[in-house]
């Protein structure tokens, strides 16, 4: 089978959230000698970008996106160990998490999957992440970007705390700080001096890409 067909099948597996196909076409692609990075960027990730567009157009529910993201993650469990050996391929390092007291992570998880898909090295700290954990991880991995998600109007003020902590740790402006989540709005990002705001996963990916391309990575 031609490489393009394998990649197309991978895209379709993600679009249709077919976990088994995502796994089997990944395995097949590896066996055929397609580079793991290409399976991600030209297969899985393109599928996920399609899913993001379908969601934006109102053709997909958020549950469709979560399922597609799950299918992509299944395949990534096979592919990521290969990528770890090829650090030079990463576009940049992103530390992600949901802020203190916030247990909502659906959007953040989709962002993480899509960022991995386009070639970022993602450190997802999970939910209820303190400013110290964000800072420590950013220092430890020498992050290019830190992203904080907040879903509640009772928790999004923590995004300001993280910005202050990044400033105090001397990480800004080198480390870019982006925010998102259900409770957050563009003006809030400007108010707290964040470098960017993303309303959805596609916007987050484009934002992160713009930072690293500006850096010339």
């Amino acid at each position: 089978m031609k490489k393009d067909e394998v990649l197309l099948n991978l895209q379709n597996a993600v679009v249709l959230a077919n976990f088994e196909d995502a796994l089997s076409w990944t395995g097949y692609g590896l066996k055929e000698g397609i580079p793991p990075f290409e399976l991600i960027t030209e297969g899985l990730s393109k599928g996920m970008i399609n899913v993001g567009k379908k969601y934006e157009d109102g053709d997909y529910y958020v549950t469709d996106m979560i399922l597609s993201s799950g299918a992509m993650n299944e395949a990534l469990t096979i592919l990521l160990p290969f990528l770890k050996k090829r650090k030079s391929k990463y576009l940049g390092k992103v530390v992600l998490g949901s802020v203190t007291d916030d247990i909502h992570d659906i959007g953040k998880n989709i962002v993480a999957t899509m960022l991995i898909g386009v070639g970022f090295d993602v450190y997802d700290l999970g939910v209820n992440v303190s400013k110290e954990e964000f800072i420590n991880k950013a220092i430890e991995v020498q992050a290019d970007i830190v992203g904080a998600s907040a879903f509640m109007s009772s928790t999004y003020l923590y995004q300001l705390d993280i910005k202050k902590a990044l400033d105090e740790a001397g990480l800004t402006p080198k480390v870019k700080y982006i925010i998102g989540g259900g409770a957050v709005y563009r003006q809030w990002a400007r108010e707290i001096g964040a470098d960017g705001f993303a309303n959805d996963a596609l916007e987050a990916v484009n934002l992160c890409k713009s930072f690293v391309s500006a850096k010339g990575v």
Partner: protein
Amino acid sequence: MAKGIKVIACQVMEKEIISIVGRESNATFVQYEYHDKPELLHNRIQEAIECSTDYQCIILGFGLCGGAIDGILAMTCPVIIPKIDDCIPLLLGSRERYEQEKKIESGTYFLNQGWIEYGNDALKDFYKWREMYGERKALWLINEIYKAYTRVAFINSGFEDKNRYLCYAGEVANFLNVKLDVLSGNLGFIRQLLNLEWDNDNYIKLEPGQKAERCMFRP
């Protein structure tokens, strides 16, 4: 002549609100189903405001509700909005109590009678998603979406028929394999709201022509 006060609220609080203002009151309840699409919920609330002319003021029984209230425009009279994310603080009596309960267990899934009657929960989601995607994917989604929840808390507002709702809340807890707690409801916050006993800390007042903004909801 102004017709008094108009209440526009989410139907999950219908019983609580009716118990205070009575069935004959000027209250409109907006269907819960619009919560899944905040822009639709926004439109329904705005339409209800636009249909409510000649009132002294309009009271919204909604929180920010996923951003649905962002941009709501007061038309001919002031609009009062509680400064909350969702209706849970209204059912528990205060924002402080809500914060306290979340501190006790951050992964709390709150339910009340109205929520069980009209809203979403893990069981209803499971049945809906099973229809859409089949059992395996539905279970995968439940695990993914509800994984952070560690308890179901039933808010008991003290209505006579509460037992069957409490039983159902127990079924949801069992399904998620988490514990069930019963919290006493407190209608004090709703009562203050409906009695126009507001202050800037707890409520937003939009003057005619003014729009609600997310930043107004900051504690």
